[in-house]
Each structure stands twice: as C-alpha cells, then as structure tokens.
C-alpha cells in the first residue's frame, strides 16, 4: 500500500523538469505554431513582397476574420470541440444582409439593423444546432459539419427557389432575371460596405502605440494582482510587459522614420469590436455561466451529478457561438463589400477553425491569443503562398493549392492528434486505477 505514495511522489518529481526540459516542453507543446512561423518566414522571403504590403494586407484580414475565429472559443470551453456549425451563424448574417440590402438601408444604420435581424435568427439556429449536438454527444464535430452542409441545402432552397415564389420579392438588383431566386453576387458598395471599417481609420503607428500602452497597463495590473495572492506563474506577465514595451518602441520608430508603413490605416472601430469580444471571452470564464461551461467541458458526468443541467449549458454555448458567428460574418462582409450569396459562408467554418488550430489551440483548449496568433499566421500564409509558389516552383497554383492543403491538413492532424491523445489517456487511466 505504501508503495503507492512513493510512486506518486516519484511521478511528481518527474514533472518538475530542468530548464532544458521546460524549453523542450514549450517547443513540443507549440510545435504546430512554430512550424507555421517558420513556414511564414520562408513564404515571406520567397514571395519577395515588401513587409509594408504584407502588413497592410494582414491588418485588413485580421479585422475581417478575427471575430469569426473568436466565436469558436466558447464551444471549445464547453467541451464540444470545434464548432463547424458557425457556418449556420454565417447564414443568419447573410439572410439579414440580403433583407437590409433589399430595404436599401445603408451605412452604419443598415449594419446595426443587420445585427438586429440576424441575432434572433442566430439564436434560433443555435438552439436547434445545440439540440442536435446533444443527440450526437461524442460526435459533435462531424455532426456540426454535416449539419452545416445540410443547412446550406436549406439556405439554397430558400434563396434559389422560395424567393419570388413563396416569398414575394421584386427587386431587379437582387433577384435573378427570371424573377425567382437571388443573384449569385450582391454588391454591397453603397450599402453596408465599410459600414464599420469606414467609421474611423487610424494610422498603424498610432494604433500600435495605443495597443502597446493598454497592454503594458493590463499586464502590470495582472502582475501585481497575482503577486498579491502569491501565485508563482506570474513571470509571464513581466515578459508580456517587456514585449509590449518593444511594441511601443516600434510604434514610435514607425512615426519617426517615415516609411511606407505610414500609409497603412487601421479600421479602428472594427478592432475595438474585436477587443470587446476578446474581453467578453475572458469575462465569461469568470462568471457562473463560464464556470458551468468549464465544468461541463471537463467532465459531463460530474457536472450532471453536481446538479448542472448539462444539455442546457451545451445549448447555451452553441447559441452564443452561433450569434457571434452571425455578427462575425457581418463584419467579414462589410469589409469584403460583395456578398457571394451561395458561397461566402461555405468555407467560413473551415478557415476559422484552421486559423485557430494554427495558433496552437486544440479540440479541448482555445484562447483569445491563440486565435489572434493563428489568424496572423494563417493569413500571412494566404497572402504570400501564391507568389512564393510562383517564385519557388514556377506556379502560383501550387501555392494556392498548398494553402488549401494546409487548411485541411492542419485540421486533420490536429483532430488526429487529439483522438490519439485521448486513446493514450484512456489507457493510462486504466493503468493508474
């Protein structure tokens, strides 16, 4: 019997690694992200693009996509894996856009109306998605993916055949010439294009300055907070302060040395909204609801026994995610400026999930910073790979296919690794009992 304790002690000792061990562990845990950092650096080098161009593109893409990626975090928290069902949220957003475009309400008013219309739709869709996922516990991801395809069928049915027949609509700019069905592409310029982005654009250097200052304040506050309760893992905040100061210096340098970077503008309000959603994701964890998400996510059985209504919590998580996805799609489209009625939403889930995973998230763990890092890396690759492919292999197409492969591949590998880990853990659990 006493052998057990000594075994346990030994195991604990095994966990406290030396410095080399820690570095190894960090490298291993962030393998995917590091691999992509290397890939991006290669890509940037071989694409021959200027850093300023890439940065400009990147900022547009971050502003465009971040919200969608961030909408994935809560279902992961609740143990439901990567919500491929955000496609359905995106559809809710597009339904709203088509309605608002039809009513010719433009600008920020139009955008807000879109939010107003898409939210109840997304809540409804999210509710049904959640109900379905409760029926397919353990297979949530495949179920949400197939559900996305299924919903896409219904969506097409609605816009291709119901408009003009069951739903009367006379609008030659939206409806196909035959009078039935919505056109393939809808131009949003003069509508809600840049409704949010265009509110206020700030020079990059100024934006960086503000962000770095905010980061410094937050991290110092957190450091002091954790120091008060004697937590030992607070060095990371000091590290962040250091990094933010570097950023601050960079922003000042950008202002002083007038490079091509000074032409880059940041859509300030959009970024603000993204920051707000980040704060929301952090905030929710610290509430009762968030604690329930975490409990359900870690162990449904224990949650059930301790009186938490597991099914309801899971539905709530999916509803939140779906609503955020609908808003995310609105932000995405107001930036793109054209709605591809039957295509804009299709790849939304896949690209958002790939970005999140590249940032180092997994099926069971995802954070804001992983989402942001993931978006930066994934979209850098997107920007540079066609040109890098052309310069390196003589074919831009190779680069294009490569980035598609990367998106699918990273999801595949990540899912595979997760399943493999689960299998090992199940075995270990057997042994330790």
């Amino acid at each position, binding site marked *: 019997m006493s052998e057990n304790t000594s075994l346990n002690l030994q195991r604990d000792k095994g966990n406290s690694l030396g410095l080399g061990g820690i570095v190894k562990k960090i490298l291993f845990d962030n393998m995917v992200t590091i691999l992509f950092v290397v890939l991006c650096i290669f890509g940037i080098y071989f694409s021959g693009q200027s850093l300023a161009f890439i940065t400009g593109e990147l900022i547009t893409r971050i502003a465009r996509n971040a919200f969608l990626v961030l909408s994935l975090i809560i279902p992961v928290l609740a143990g439901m894996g990567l919500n491929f069902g955000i496609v359905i949220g995106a559809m809710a957003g597009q339904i709203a856009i088509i309605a608002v475009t039809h009513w010719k309400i433009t600008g920020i008013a139009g955008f807000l109306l879109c939010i107003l219309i898409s939210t109840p739709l997304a809540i409804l869709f999210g509710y049904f998605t959640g109900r*379905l996922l*409760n*029926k*397919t*516990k*353990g*297979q949530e*991801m*495949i*179920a949400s*993916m*197939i*559900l996305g*395809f*299924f919903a*896409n*069928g*219904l969506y*097409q*049915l609605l816009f*291709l*055949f119901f408009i003009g*027949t069951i739903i009367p609509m006379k609008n030659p700019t939206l409806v*196909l010439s*035959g009078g*039935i*069905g919505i056109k393939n592409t809808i131009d949003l310029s003069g509508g809600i294009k840049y409704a949010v982005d265009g509110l206020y654009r700030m020079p990059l250097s100024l934006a960086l300055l503000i962000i770095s200052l905010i980061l410094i304040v937050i991290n110092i506050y957190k450091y002091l907070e954790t120091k008060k309760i004697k937590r030992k893992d607070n060095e990371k905040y000091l590290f962040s302060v250091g990094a933010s100061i570097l950023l601050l210096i960079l922003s000042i340098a950008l202002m002083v040395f007038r490079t091509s970077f000074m032409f880059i503008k940041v859509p300030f309000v959009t970024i603000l909204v993204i920051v707000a959603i980040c704060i929301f994701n952090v905030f929710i964890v610290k509430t009762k609801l968030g604690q329930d998400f975490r409990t359900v996510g870690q162990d*449904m059985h224990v949650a059930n026994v301790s009186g938490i209504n597991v099914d309801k919590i899971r539905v709530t998580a999916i509803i939140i995610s779906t609503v955020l996805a609908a808003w995310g799609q609105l932000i995405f489209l107001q930036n793109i400026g054209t709605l591809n009625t039957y295509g804009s939403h299709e790849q939304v889930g896949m690209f958002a999930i790939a970005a999140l995973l590249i940032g180092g998230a997994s099926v069971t763990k995802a954070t804001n910073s992983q989402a942001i890092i993931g978006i930066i890396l994934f979209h850098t690759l997107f920007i540079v790979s066609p040109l890098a492919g052309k310069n390196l*292999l*003589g*074919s831009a*197409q*190779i680069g294009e*296919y*490569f980035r*598609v*492969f990367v*998106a*699918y*591949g990273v*999801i*595949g590998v990540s*899912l*595979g690794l*997760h*399943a*493999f880990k*689960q*299998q090992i853990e199940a075995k270990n659990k057997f042994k330790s009992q």
Partner: protein
Amino acid sequence: MPKKLQETINRIGIPRLIITAFFIFLCILAVLLGLPIGSLISDTLVRTGMNGVLVLAMVPGILCGIGLNFGLPLGIVCGLIGGLISIEMNLTGLKAFSVAVLISVPISAVVGYFYGMLLNKVKGSEMMVSTYVGFSAVSLMCIGWLVMPFNSPEIKWPIGKGLRTTITLTSRYAKVLDNLFSFSIGGIVFPTGLLAFFLICCFIMWRFLRSRAGIAMKAVGDNPVFASASGINVNKSRIIGTMLSTILGAVGIIAYAQSFGFYQLYQAPMMMGFAAVAAVLIGGASAKNAKISHVILGTFLFQGLLTVALPVANKIVTEGNLAEVLRIIVSNGIILYALTKVGGGGE
C-alpha cells in the same frame, strides 16, 4: 396493431420512409408530367451501376468498426492514378479498363494499409479524422496533379503545367462496361456489363464476409472486446476492412468514370465520399451495420431519386438546379440522422 406499426416505422427510420415516399411521389409526378419513362429508368440503371461500387466500399468500413468511411476520396485518388496510367500506356477498350483496375488495386491497398493504421490510432473519432484525411488527400493531390510526370496529350494541358481538370475517355474506354452485352426492351436500355460488374463486386464482398477473415472482421466491428477475447487481432481486422474499403473506392471511381466518360481531377473527388455514405444509409445501413442488400437498394433509391428529380424539377422551376439542392438536403439529412443514432445521445 398500432404498436407493431410504430415498431416497423422505428426499424425503418422516419427519414428513410420520407425519402422512399418522396421517390414514389416523384415517379408519379414524372408520369403525370409525361416525361419519357423509358429513358428515366435506363438512366437510373446506369447511375446505379456507376455509383454502386463506390457505395459498396462503405460496407467493409462499417463492418470492421471504423464507421462511415468519409475518407473514401483516398481510394478515389488511387483509382484516378491507375486510370491515368492506363491512358499513359496508350491502351483502349476493356483491356485499358482492366489495366486501370489492376494498377490501382495494389496502390490503394498500400494506401489503405497506412490509412488503416492511422485509424487504429484514433479509435472513437474515426469519422471526423477520416473526413479530413480525405479532404487533405484531395488537396495534396491537387498539387500532385500539377507536378506529376504524365506525357500523354490527353492528360496534360496543351500549354502550361499540370494535368487537365477533366480527361475525356471517349477514345479510350468510355462506356465499355455499359455497352457490354447491353440490350433494350421497350425503350429501356439495360447496361448489362456495368450492372454485372457491380453485382460481381457485391458477390465477391458477400463471399468475403462469409470467410474466416470476414467473419472475424464483422466480430471486430460489432464488439471489439468480444473479438479480442476470441483471439482475433482487432487492429489487423480493422486494417483489412479499411484496405478493402479503399480498394473498392479505387475500383469504384474507374467504373464510375468509364460510364461518366471523364476522369475529374483536382477538387472533384472531395465530396464523393458523402454521396456514397448517404446512399448506403438510405438503403438501411447504420454507422455500425451494413449489408450488401443495403448497398443495392440504397444506390438504386438514391440515384433513382436524383435521376427522376432533375427533369421533374426542371419542369416545375426552370431556373436553378433544384435537383442539386435536393441532393444536398437528402444526403446530408440522412447522414445526420445516422449520426444521432451512433451515440444514442441519452447518456
């Protein structure tokens, strides 16, 4: 009596009933609209034969316990390689078809072996992983098609790099099986060779399921703990099932292409797995159990539905592709239904 009815409905499944009823409804509509019934039946038969082997590929996967093999594109890609090589060798007719099959079988066997090993490492999440293995394989092969060293002008783009997106088989072996011993009665053309090929594949599979290895495989899929207690090597049986599924995927696409008349490269195979999955489910299979009869019935129903729906839909709504939308809803709906039955959900 109502209880018995209820039981029967539960056993068949509501979605299946809806689909069958819908099919019958479409058939009646087709008659009322005065559509050419003979050619519709002929088309249905051809499409059943051409998709049949791909659907059959689901059976060993389901029975060995990996569930619905969404990774079918892996086999399809192997079949495409075999098919392209047979063209590159400048063969024609049945000989070319046979060579394509013969080449693709070992390739897909090897690929299936490694795929099976991978799936053994991810037990419990096979369906999700296999979906993305399929997607990744297709997108990786997109690069592959760009760089593969084929020289035949039928395969390559005349200018620039890489292979054509569609490769015509007219001068090679388009419809060799369809036209083999085909005959027509009262306006209905029977693609005898094609159907015979499909049925022979079914027969071989049926025989395999009654062999020692086949019985072991079924036991593994049904209850892996039982199987290992009976001295059966669970992982090996699962690999055999996965290999068979991949091989049938390869053979299936060649049979499909000869009837279709083209090989489609690049993104085309991406979603083909889903159609096959849907067909076998419509036939009455589940993620845990499938029979040859499910394959035959399911393929016929699903393809029949699509064949009849197209002209009927075109008569009603002239614009847009209603039949395609219908396909999306039906196939994904039935897969969703099957998924809700996997975990039981009631835990």
